């Protein structure tokens, strides 16, 4: 009786060991199959873009492509900056100060990802109820600081990592 039990236990051990090694093996094969879908080295290599901003007039903006996505670069007028800063934080669905969305001392330059945080459309400039941007896809309104004010988008338009190389050039990424 005890002999038989011992046999069964030994076989159980072999089964468990086989399943475990099998699972590890399957996992080791599956991970490369999943990870191959992540952005490849060529995509990652496009991670920075330098832009000449010297020709942008106050109140105007340009759109450049970074990582396949549009970046809005807007040189805001003093009135627009004042308007953005006059907004009470309580009125914002995603409260954020305008000061925190620009570089200190370069308050006129708004550099942000021109992608609606709802479902990724490109909002239209100088449209909407808040003098900023309006997304035509599902009706999100952004203000002159690119903050969401009304509509289904959950957050403000994203500010990418960027820096001023010199007074006329910014490097995004």
């Amino acid at each position, binding site marked *: 009786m005890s002999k038989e039990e011992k046999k069964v236990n030994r076989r159980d051990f072999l089964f468990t060991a086989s399943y475990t090694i099998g699972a590890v093996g399957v996992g080791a094969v599956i991970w490369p199959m*999943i990870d191959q*879908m*992540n*952005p*490849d080295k060529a*995509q990652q290599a496009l991670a920075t873009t330098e832009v000449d901003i010297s020709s942008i007039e106050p109140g105007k903006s340009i*759109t450049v*492509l970074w*990582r*396949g*996505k*549009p970046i809005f670069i807007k040189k805001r007028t003093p009135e627009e900056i004042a308007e953005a800063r006059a907004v009470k934080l309580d009125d914002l669905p995603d409260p954020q100060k305008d000061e925190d969305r620009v570089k200190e001392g370069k308050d006129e330059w708004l550099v942000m990802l021109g992608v609606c945080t*709802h*479902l*990724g*459309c*490109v*909002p*239209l400039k100088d449209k909407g109820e808040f003098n900023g941007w309006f*997304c*035509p*896809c*599902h*009706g999100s309104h952004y203000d002159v600081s690119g903050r969401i004010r009304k*509509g*289904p*988008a*959950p957050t403000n338009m994203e500010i990418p990592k960027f820096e001023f190389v010199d007074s006329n050039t910014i490097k995004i990424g």
Partner: protein
Amino acid sequence: MSEHEYVPKSKAGKWFNDRLPLLTLGAHLTDYPTPKNLNYWWTFGGILTFCLITQIVTGIVLAMHYVAHADLAFASVEHIMRDVNYGWLIRYIHSNGASMFFLAVYIHIFRSLFYGSYKSPREVIWIIGLMIYLLMMAAAFMGYVLPWGQMSFWGATVITNLFSAIPLVGDSITTWLWGAYSVDNPTLNRFFSLHYLIPFLILGLVVLHIWALHVPGNNNPVGIDIKKPSKDTVPFHPYITIKDAFALLVFMIIFAGFVFFTPNVLGHSDNYIPANPLITPAHIVPEWYLLPFYAILRSVPDKLGGVILMFSAIFILFVLPWLDTSKVRSAVFRPIYRQFFWILVIDVLMLGYVGAMPAEGIYLVLARVGTVYYFLHFIVVMPVVGYLEKTDPIPMSISEPVLTGGAEPSLARKVNDKV
């Protein structure tokens, strides 16, 4: 499968069949006892098989000329339209074929809903059918991306961004789906690969769908269990094959009407503009067959909530066999449910309509009303009506109403007496 002994006539046939019983399978499919009262709503299974084969054949041919690259895809589609011999015909059959496929599948699904074909013992057929439907939507969506026009690009952007609503890992998942930091060439490449794969997965599921169907046999318009074979059944061939063939011919006439006379009416003209990642078209709409779900998505003012509700609208159908508490299958004998069924049909059509309209004003109100009813129908109406409804008497057999000129109460049994 049925238990009949089939013996091939020829010696060679017997030799082969002993080793691989394909001839037995063929005989089963030919003789398969089918309820004799099946109406034309039952012909859409065959029509759908035709649609799948059409999409696979035309798709394989199109793949011989199409180039899955962001810089070349749009031009290669135009090349198919202008240069390839009969390329315009093959592409229009393929693109309109998708619409015809969905038209047929929606009729097929609503047929099931009306006659209770999803109810015991056919739950597995229903669930496999829904899996096919989900794969169809995935295939159709990815196929629409391949021409790399404005609607392709921005449709892909909006739909893949649905996954970014998932908390914490949403952005990583979206980037993973794209293979880039936006919808780009890697996205197009993988969509092409998957678009080619999915129809064959569907084909496999269709085999399981039919296999699962052949275990209990077809439901029928009166929705009662029948003995097979009996005077209530006819062999599949030639009775059902000829009926299916006639319905298919009518269907093909409509199909050909679209292909030859209005090949672009179901598409969107913006998709003849090459994809531009800097400009979003003013009004993004999905293909018509996805509009009801799009309306549900937009009816919710919250991103995650909208996405959850949209997916729930599909997944709630998976538990439908257990939400319906009625013992009677066919709505023919369910006077209350029958009315709610038609309300659901109107509701879904209305959602489809408002899905195509801007999400504002009256359209938004209608979308919200429609969404609320859609869920109420499945979560409240189906269990409660099934429980409370006094159903009409159901006949003893399919032959009975035919032979006696109506379901006489004396011959009929009440549902409550049964089971």
